[in-house]
C-alpha cells in the first residue's frame, strides 16, 4: 500500500522533510513529488477528459506526470499551504485536474449521484497543512471529495500534528 506525497509548498521545510521520510519509510514504493517547479495549469473546465478524449486532459503540461503516478499508488497525501482557511490554489488545482480518473457516466451511491470511476483505483486522500486553516471544514471537504472517488479520507492534519497521519496510512 504505497503513498504518493504531493508537496505543493513554496518553501523548503525541515519538519516536512522529516515527515515525508517517515511516510516513505513506512510504506514501500512511496514517493514524493514537489510541484513547485512543475508547470501545472488550473483546470479550464472544457470537459474534454469526459466527452472528447476520455481520460486524457487537454492541457499538455506537467500534470500528466502526476495523473499517471496517481494510478500507481493507493493513497495520496497533499502537503499544502493554507489561504483563507482552505488549501492553496496550487493544491486545489491538483484536485480540480484529477477528474480524468472519473468517467462522464453516472450512478447513484448512497442516495446521491456520482461519476463512475474510470479505473479500478480508489485513492484515499489526506492533507497535511502549514499555517492556519478552518480545520473542521477541511475535514468535511476531504470526506466529500473522496466520496466522489468511492474512497475515504485519510484525515486532515496541521504540520504540528502531522505525525498523526502515520497511523492512517
Amino acid at each position: 500500500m504505497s503513498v504518493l506525497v504531493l508537496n505543493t509548498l513554496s518553501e523548503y521545510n525541515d519538519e516536512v522533510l522529516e515527515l515525508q521520510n517517515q511516510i516513505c519509510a513506512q510504506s514501500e514504493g512511496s514517493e514524493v513529488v514537489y510541484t513547485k517547479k512543475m508547470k501545472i495549469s488550473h483546470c479550464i473546465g472544457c470537459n474534454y477528459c469526459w466527452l472528447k478524449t476520455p481520460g486524457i486532459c487537454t492541457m499538455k503540461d506537467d500534470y500528466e506526470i502526476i495523473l499517471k503516478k496517481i494510478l500507481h499508488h493507493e493513497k495520496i497525501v497533499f502537503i499544502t499551504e493554507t489561504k483563507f482557511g482552505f488549501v492553496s490554489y496550487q493544491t486545489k488545482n491538483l484536485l480540480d485536474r484529477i477528474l480524468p480518473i472519473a468517467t462522464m457516466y453516472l450512478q447513484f451511491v448512497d442516495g446521491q449521484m456520482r461519476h463512475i470511476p474510470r479505473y479500478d483505483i480508489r485513492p484515499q486522500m489526506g492533507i497535511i497543512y502549514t499555517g492556519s486553516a478552518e480545520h473542521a471544514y477541511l475535514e468535511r471537504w476531504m470526506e466529500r471529495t473522496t466520496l466522489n472517488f468511492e474512497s475515504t479520507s485519510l484525515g486532515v492534519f496541521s504540520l504540528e500534528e502531522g505525525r498523526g497521519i502515520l497511523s492512517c496510512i
Partner: protein
Amino acid sequence: MHLVIINASPRVETKSNTARIIRTFVRGYEASGNTTEIWHLSDKKQWTGAKEAYEKNGNVLFAIPLYVENVPGIMLEFLETLQPKKESGTKMSFILQGGFGEASQLRCGEAYLEMLPSYFNCEYNGTLIKGDNFGFSWVPEDMAEKMAAHYEKMGRSFAEKETFYKEEVTEFAAPEYFSEKEIRRYKRIGRWIQKALFNYIAKKNGCRKPLDDKPYQVKQTDKRA
C-alpha cells in the same frame, strides 16, 4: 444599486454555463433600474479590472461553478491578489452552480462561502445555490436560454431583498435529494437514456474512444508493492 459580478469560471465566457446564468440573473436584477458590471476570471486581462472593481464597490457577487466540492482553483488564485477591505460594510454574495441535480451536492461549497467574506473584512450576504446546469452547453441556444430562465426571477428577488434568503434559495434549489422513487426510475430507464445522450454528445465532439476508455491503465505487473 450597483453590483459588481465576478464570474469565477475558468471556462471561456462564450462557453461558460456560469456566464449564461449571470446574463439571465442580470436581466431580472436590472429590471428595476439597478446596474451591474461583469468580470470574467477566465480572461487574465480582466483580473486588474476585477480587482479594482472589488476595491471600489461595496456590493460584490461571485458567480461560481462548483469544482471538486468548492470554488475552482482559478478563483483561489484571484483571491490572493485581493486585500481585505480597510472599511467594513462591503457585502459579498455568491451564486454557486453545479451539474448534479441535488442541492445537497452544493452544501459543502456553500459552507465555505459562508466563511470566506470574513477573510476580506466583508459581510456575508447569502449564496444562491442550484444544480442541474450541466446541459446548457450541449443543447441548442434557445433551449439553453429556457433552461436558465428561472435565474431571472432570482435576479428580481435579489434586487428587491438585497440578499439571498436561505429558505427561498432552498426552495429554488430543490430537490435536496432525489426521492427513492426517482432513483429507482433512474436505475431502470434514466441511466440508459443519459448514457445514450453522453455517447451522442461525444460523437458530435469527434470522440473516437469509448467514454470509459482507460488510457493510463496500469498492468498488475507494473504495480508497485
